[in-house]
């Protein structure tokens, strides 16, 4: 389990990193926290010729609030998400999600940019940024692009990012009045990738959802913003309403089967998550017992 030989460059700026990426094309790989890249290299699943280490690029660091936007640099580590007061105040969903990512040693190294660029469908942070309706800022030689999180993830380990682009920041609309969030995942052990998870951002008024963005993870090839959530908007949630939303959710999901869970089990767990989300944010359903 040794990586094959590779060259290493420490990029001094975004421009410098982009130059290297353009020069080497597919043979180069960006190194951020290394928590996904290094294991893959050590297992020789990938053997890049050049590693472009972006760890020292100060432009990619920092968490700042500008007006209605919370901007989070790509190099922000999971542990920073967990501890940042700005994030706790303006995007508490991320604080909660980060606590479910791996273990302390990995959270100390792994970065938000790396997690989003890696786009593991079972990851917490991609779903969270989708639920938050965030914008992902990427930089290429021709300039910056802003991509809605909902359009950024295109498949298993696939994103709208090209090999010559760098993810530089994530912009999250700051939490409004009456906003509420829910985060839960089912994983075999603490710190494992989830079998099924839900990151949800909502606006709750007078005991009703007026807005609900429910992003499921580990139940598809990318984070899935459930259309079924619309069935729960502006309506008092009864077991019947919930059952209908659940059925819709079951139809729209097409989960994969793996060693941890069959597709049927993932669908089932997603429904449980939706019910628990509703019950956590609005209280138990109006009539009938808990679900």
């Amino acid at each position, binding site marked *: 389990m040794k990586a094959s030989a590779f060259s290493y460059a420490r990029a001094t700026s975004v421009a410098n990193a982009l130059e290297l990426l353009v020069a080497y094309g597919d043979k180069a790989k960006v190194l951020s926290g290394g928590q996904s890249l290094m294991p893959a290299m050590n297992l020789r699943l990938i053997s890049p010729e050049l590693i472009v280490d972006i760890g020292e690029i100060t432009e990619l660091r920092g968490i700042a609030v500008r007006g209605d936007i919370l901007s989070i640099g790509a190099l922000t580590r999971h542990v920073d998400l967990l501890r940042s007061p700005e994030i706790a105040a303006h995007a508490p969903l991320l604080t909660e999600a980060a606590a479910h990512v791996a273990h302390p040693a990995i959270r100390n190294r792994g970065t938000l940019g790396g997690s989003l660029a890696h786009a593991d469908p079972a990851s917490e942070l991609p779903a969270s940024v989708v639920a938050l309706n965030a914008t992902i800022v990427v930089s290429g030689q021709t300039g910056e692009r802003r991509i809605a999180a909902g359009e950024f993830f295109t498949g298993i380990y696939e994103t709208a990012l090209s090999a010559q682009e760098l993810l530089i920041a994530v912009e999250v609309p700051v939490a409004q009045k009456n906003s509420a969030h829910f985060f839960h995942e089912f994983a075999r052990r603490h710190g494992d990738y989830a*079998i099924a998870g839900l990151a949800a951002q909502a606006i709750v008024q007078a005991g009703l959802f007026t807005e609900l963005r429910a992003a499921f993870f580990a139940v598809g090839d990318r984070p899935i913003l459930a259309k079924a959530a619309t069935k729960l908007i502006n309506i008092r949630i009864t077991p019947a309403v919930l059952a209908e939303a659940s059925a819709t959710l079951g139809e729209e999901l097409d989960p994969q089967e793996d060693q941890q*869970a069959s597709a049927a*089990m993932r669908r089932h767990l997603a429904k449980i998550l939706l019910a628990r989300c509703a019950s956590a944010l609005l209280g138990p359903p109006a009539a009938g017992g808990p679900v």
Partner: protein
Amino acid sequence: MTVASANPDRLTVLDRPNSYIGKVVPRPNLERLMQGRGLYVSDMELPRMAHVVFLRSPHAHAKIIGIDAVEARRMPNVIAVVTGRELATVITPWVGVLSHLKGLKSAPQHAIAIDRVCWQGEAVAAVVATSRAVAEDAAESVRVEYQELDAVTDMRAALDPETPVIHPSLGDNLAFERNLDAGAVDAAFAESDEVAEADFIFGRHTGVTLEPRAVVADWNIAEQRLTVYQGTQAPHMVQNIAALHLGLADSQVRVVCKDVGGSFGIKVHIYADEMATYALSKLLRRPVKFVADRVESFNTDIHARDHRCKGRIGVKRDGTITAFEIDDLTGIGPYSMYPRTSAIEANQVVNLVGGPYRTKNYRARARVVFQNKNLMCQYRAVGHPIACSVTEGLVDLVASKIGMDPVEIRRRNLIADDAYPCASPSGLRFEQLSHHAAMSKLMTMMGYDALRAEQTALRKKNIHHGIGIASFIEVTNPSAAFYGVGGARISSQDGVAVRLDATGSVICQTSITEQGQGSESLTAQIVGSVLGVSMERVRVILGDTDNTPYGGGTWASRGAGIGGEAALQAAKILRKNVLDIAATILQSSPAELDIVNNAVVTASDGSPRIELRELARIVYFRPDTLPPGIQAELMATRHFVPREYPFAFTNGVQASWIEVDTDTGFVKLLKHWVVEDCGTIINPQLVDEQIRGGVVQGLGAALFEKCIYDERGQLTNANMADYLVPMSGEMPDIDVGHVVSPTTESELGAKGAGEAGTAGAAAAVANAVNDALKPFGAIITEIPLTPQVILTALGRI
């Protein structure tokens, strides 16, 4: 049987003023390991040392048509690429059978496959280079042409006539079969008021050691000697086998075992890649290092517990168990492991089922079959978790049929504490067990009645907790009956040499080994206590066939009971020798003297007479001042092997308190209790941590661990992300209590404690889950109890 910590009648040599016995004392090796100054084989560097990487078969079963290593051999810093055929000129193949396991058969296994590979992961070539990374690069360019053969993967089909026979010379895929019929089983079932039966399924899993298997082999052509540095549990066994297959005398092989990063039975076997490493050193005449990486570890470290066992139990309405019957099937891979064989686990299952209970009616069949998967062999608590889960699962099933509480049915059937000595239907002889005392202690520790009340109250809120109980027996301190009688050169005795050096310190060489259990600590505790010397003055040397007495090592929960007794006896002799000399010097008599706190004292009042340091000075440097004719002997050696009982059985009971989320199938472990009886407790903390560690491995089996093979014999989760080891986040608090029934086979009275935790933990959890699911009418007899398994049983998916 006593619940007190020591029996003064028997523990005279240990029950001394400064005794360390029964005390928590820090391990002497703690500081060294905590400061990162341990020396593991992985750390070792020798001049001219080369690194070997094994190219391994991607197929479960295939013919090797050709190997093209031309390109690899030309790569810079590559020393050699060696095939199985080439290596066979230096090392002979082996067959993993023992004569006392009647009918056990296996085929010759080579260090590196020659014509055919029989499991995914079997080595087909060795690539030797100046570094592991270079060797891995070169391995990628070796081209092997295979012709795939049908793979036998499902153990249930291994014996079907249409299934290919893996080793045609053996005739079929049956490696071993054992049948036992004791008492009057049919009549007992006929007279039973209720009978319960179930198919128990156990996931194949493995013992994941923190440090992988690692070897440095150094053939010194000038000395004509091979030095093997290896993390092994049995250095003398390795010495013998390496010599045998390399055509050397045992005396030409030295095995050195420094620090070992976990073993759990994984490192008590002879692996093909380790044999290949010894042979490569001989062939290439330089030191060669092999350190398994994690993927190799999953593919080649022995697996265990792949069993399917049908079980049946009969009971009278008053709860009396009338009979047990089992039919066990296990698949062991393509070869029986060398030299301990892969029939032992099934054999143990037959031996142990029903073991805690009184019934004499027991019928068993066990069949061991070959398949194209990695080899299975002995891993911590060999056979016990299978036997315990089947027995205890059946007891709960039948208790539920007659509406009896699980504790009550056990109380009515466990062998009475005053019924010893006695024997089990399978012929196991029990010297003294304490099932009832252990159960009573458990009830108090866990507050059984209160928990039952809590469970009932929670059910009303749709919260489903369960209580699971599992009584067990454990095989420890094996005599020659385990391996020696079958012809294996695996010693069941151990030896300890103790000497007082010239400054009054003690050097102690023992043949048991240390892999984290605390062998070093317990040896120093015993020697210090018996001699009257403080532990800091006792230096323990282990793991070197040139420098320790000959012995078995540390496995089968034997280190403390056997090696500890040898230490006690050796220290007793040295003490006598010291007192004889002291009496001469002091013109006193040995009976009037004692050794306390590193000095000879007057026995009656403890007044100091002469420091050991001073006595040693006289003996070593001024023997001229001693009376004529006196020859001091400040070194003593003793060996010990149990002679009366083939095994020192221990017993205990475990309980698990869990919650099942019936919406998701997730199990939460809330609390675990163990009461066990390992006889004399030398270091309570070491014993408790052995129990806890063992429980954790059992909990891993219950909920998480499984080697998942596909139908083509590919291990699909050979990494730490997909193979789930138990981790601290999921582990409950584990309370440990003891009952103490020392064995009278030794003065020390210690039995083993290393495997008790693993023996019963999974059974307790499985029973707890079924207890929690009772309102749903679901019964699960399969582990690991994954959310998928539980949701399926609940009909939710």
